[in-house]
């Protein structure tokens, strides 16, 4: 195992940021930590980077304990925090040289590793980092995190606020880095990026909801998810669908509604009602859930459980 997180707890005053977080990342894996802001992703990453000590539980990187053996840990990891850790008043080239020297290496020594990424920003190497666009800062920060050829790369929300094109390019880079044998742990609020990972952990309010490979996650659960489309647009149908007896949840999903039924037997009843709406362009079909569907399902089960508890009190 490259990385082991063993029942990590962490609180800040009254806020429990992480609750019994427990998972392992295999050597060479591209592992995603998926969850919204405030879920505890950055806290967990700072623990992995040896910048925070957990209240209880253990974290180790290639067998080194991040608390007791933080010196060794820092040599073998590359960490890219959420807000880029670049020096805005140094040039592109100076930033990279600085990171290389801190780790006792040179730009030349590992240049082949960052070549593809760095060449895209090399035409601006004399420019101050503070004057780069968001996409270019991201590429420079990644180059700096890689310059000492870490064995484990930890990227905290590298694509947040980045447009769909740059996000795609960034993931292409991560795949290349993986082929160099570097284990990568990356966090993101974008569910579509989860599909690009070997395995993912879904996290919400400091607790893991699931750890699995994306396809297994999609197959999990009962087959109760349906898609509704209409040539007239689906928003107008949202309230009506939610009022149907067989409907457990219904949400907008791009140009569709995704509807979770209470049981498979409800399908016939719902179909009958849809027919009575006399919209020939209506299309109702059973679908395989995406990661986003699964995440939403887990969130709802949790909130249902919460409200049942409140009612019981």
């Amino acid at each position, binding site marked *: 195992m490259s990385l082991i997180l063993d029942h990590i707890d962490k609180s800040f005053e009254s806020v429990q940021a992480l609750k019994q977080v427990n998972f392992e990342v295999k050597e060479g894996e591209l592992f995603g930590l998926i*969850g919204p802001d405030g879920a505890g992703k950055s806290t967990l990453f700072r623990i992995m980077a040896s910048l925070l000590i957990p209240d209880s539980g253990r974290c180790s990187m290639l067998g080194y304990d991040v608390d007791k053996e933080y010196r060794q840990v820092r040599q073998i990891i590359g960490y890219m925090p959420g807000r880029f850790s670049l020096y805005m008043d140094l040039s592109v080239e100076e930033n990279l040289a600085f990171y290389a020297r801190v780790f006792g290496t040179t730009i030349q020594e590992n240049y082949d590793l960052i070549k593809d990424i760095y060449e895209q920003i090399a035409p601006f190497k004399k420019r101050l980092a503070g004057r780069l666009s968001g996409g270019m800062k991201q590429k420079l920060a990644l180059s700096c995190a890689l310059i000492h050829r870490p064995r484990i790369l930890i990227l905290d929300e590298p694509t*947040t606020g980045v*447009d*769909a094109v740059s*996000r795609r390019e960034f993931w292409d880079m991560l795949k290349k880095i993986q082929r160099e044998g570097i284990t990568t742990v990356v966090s993101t609020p*974008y569910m579509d990026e989860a599909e690009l990972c070997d395995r993912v952990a879904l996290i919400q309010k400091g607790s893991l909801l699931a750890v699995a490979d994306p396809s297994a996650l999609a197959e999990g659960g009962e087959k109760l998810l349906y898609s509704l489309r209409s040539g007239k647009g689906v*928003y107008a149908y949202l309230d009506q669908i939610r009022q149907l007896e067989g409907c457990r949840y219904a949400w907008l999903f791009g140009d569709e509604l995704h509807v979770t039924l209470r049981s498979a037997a409800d399908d016939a009843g719902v179909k009958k009602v849809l027919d009575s709406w006399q919209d020939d362009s209506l299309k109702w079909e059973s679908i395989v859930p995406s990661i986003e569907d699964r995440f939403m399902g887990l969130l709802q089960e949790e909130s249902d459980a919460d409200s049942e508890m409140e009612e019981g009190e």
Partner: protein
Amino acid sequence: MTGTLEHIIEVRDMVKKFGSFVANDRLTFHVEKGEIFGFLGANGAGKTTAMRILCGLSYPSSGEIMVAGHNVYHEREKIKRKIGYMSQKFSLYDDLTVSENIRLYAGIYGLGRKEINTREAQLLERLGLTHIKNRLIREIPLGWKQKLAFSVAIFHKPAIVFLDEPTGGVDPITRRQFWEMIHDATLEGITVFVTTHYMDEAEYCDRVSIMVEGRIEALDTPAGLKQSYESRNMNEVFLKLART
């Protein structure tokens, strides 16, 4: 040029230069009253620059632009009264309570005390936040803050609300609840002008424009764009257009 009732925003040949850099290159488009208009583009394509001009926060270099019936050169204060604005970084004050934030904004827009009292109570009730109205903003979860920030941005019943990446970082259910609030706002006659990096959200818009390097490359309904660019979804449309 006069802005017609149907065109709540009318933009013709809008140019904005910073020195020799052309951030907005002859933008021409309109936004219809009551629609949800998605304003998409890659980072650095010029969206924020254009949005700042439409909100009356900066002057264009040239072009004819009317927002809510007012000219962006001479009537910026009138425009500001008729619009609402919410950015990705929330415009709420962390060290004020929920209630204080609502009252502060309502006061700035000149609403009377009686009206504020009634509408504050209604708003808190509708959001289900009455029980935490005296809590500091910094103590409440992100999803609630986001819904509150939107409600505050439309509290004075503006003609148009500008939303700059309003759903960044929240969970997928909160994101959808937010879009349901946006739809509800249009039912009250509010026009919505919105930017986002989530391409599924582009599908929720009535019409979408896509900016590339300072120009509007495409503008149509999501269905029309998908057909023109032979794409299954808006993400593919965006990748085809914006990848340079």
